[in-house]
């Protein structure tokens, strides 16, 4: 039997990018989601939104062209595409909460089969919790896709029946992209849309803590 090879983070981002249509307004969370922008071809006009007040955000500039006042939500230098705009934080989150974004992509610790997402705290008391805009994005975007490794480094499943970590939002995730495949969340739970080459459903199931239904 052919050996399957889990996708690298960049390949996961590239896979998700294929599904973003021309014309969408999209917010990408910190981490793997940020990589997605690199795989959307320039000729496809996707409006990237950054919660610190940018619509039409472009890629990182070369070092000699850095604009010190222009950063993304991860506080990295970015650029503004022709046609882009700036606005203040309350307007930015009005866009988010008001349902004006077609898509938000967030990283996650866990996603549950009922669409719950946990992505902001692991419950440890050592460091201060930090939520940023995740709860607003999860509650407000027209649809939410999660992107994450299928399991933790020590092999614990991240597709679960119910989240064990503190929740970010309830019942909002529509689709999950992992290094093993693409999974839709439906009324029946996780439905497999796609598995990486060489991986079979029982193998993906063995690395999940919720039932994966065949498409």
């Amino acid at each position: 039997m052919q050996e399957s090879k889990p996708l690298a983070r960049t390949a996961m981002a590239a896979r998700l990018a294929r599904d973003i249509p021309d014309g969408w307004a999209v917010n990408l969370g910190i981490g793997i989601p940020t990589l997605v922008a690199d795989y959307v071809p320039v000729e496809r006009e996707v409006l990237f939104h950054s919660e610190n007040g940018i619509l039409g955000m472009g890629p990182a500039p070369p070092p000699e062209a850095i604009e010190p006042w222009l950063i993304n939500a991860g506080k990295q230098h970015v650029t503004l595409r022709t046609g882009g705009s700036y606005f203040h934080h309350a307007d930015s989150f009005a866009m988010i909460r008001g349902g004006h974004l077609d898509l938000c992509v967030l990283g996650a610790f866990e996603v549950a089969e009922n669409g719950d997402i946990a992505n902001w705290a692991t419950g440890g008391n050592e460091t201060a919790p930090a939520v940023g805009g995740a709860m607003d994005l999860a509650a407000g975007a027209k649809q939410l896709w999660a992107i994450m490794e299928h399991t933790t480094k020590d092999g614990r499943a991240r597709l679960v029946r119910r989240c064990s970590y503190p929740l970010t939002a309830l019942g909002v995730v529509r689709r999950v992209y992992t290094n093993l495949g693409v999974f839709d969340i439906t009324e029946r739970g996780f439905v497999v849309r796609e598995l990486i080459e060489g991986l079979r459903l029982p193998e993906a199931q063995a690395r999940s803590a919720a039932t994966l239904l065949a498409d």
Partner: protein
Amino acid sequence: MIDKIVAGMAEAMAGVADGAVVLVGGFGAVGQPDALIEGLLEQGARDLTIVANNAGGGEGGLSRLMRHGRVRKLVCSFPRSNTGPTIFDELYRAGKIELEIVPQGTLAERMRAAGAGIPAFFTPTGYGTQLTEGKESREIAGRPCVLEHALFGDLALVEAWAADRWGNLTYRQSGRNFNPVMATAARLTVVQSQHVVALGALDPEAIVTPGIYVDRVVHVPYGDPQI
């Protein structure tokens, strides 16, 4: 004649009381009014509640205020820095600072509401999570929501790009962030501006903060934010 331009930092910070709630603009270092924070440190007010998106990084800005023991409580969405451990982390671990985590959009909207005369509002953000435990909730139009209250400041510290003597302001790129919202939500709004221009020099179509929200402006040709 209206002239909100003040000569120096002492005048800018005059009257700030111990225990004040201070709204501090900025998203990370960008748009953060570091010179005003320094002025507040000099002024000496203690027991402050700071409302800001982040908790400061490195040794400057908010970190200095915390290092000097002036901050009793921080209200913020993301008390974490790209530049590694912070003074805030140290104080938090030692139990020497209170922390209220607020979702970023709720933080912005609570201040918008304060400035707009809306005492409280219902929002779906955070419903069913730890951050809204104990808050009143209600289903509105089929959606469960939580009640959030307006967040007022005694003082707002704002960084602008250009200001005139009426206090009209423009901002620079993503340096705008929380600044215009905070400017509306405090009893006293103090601005540091890179440029001070003649009345009439700002395009009325491009003014972001009309001067009605602004009390004092200090000219601080401050240079670029350090990321």
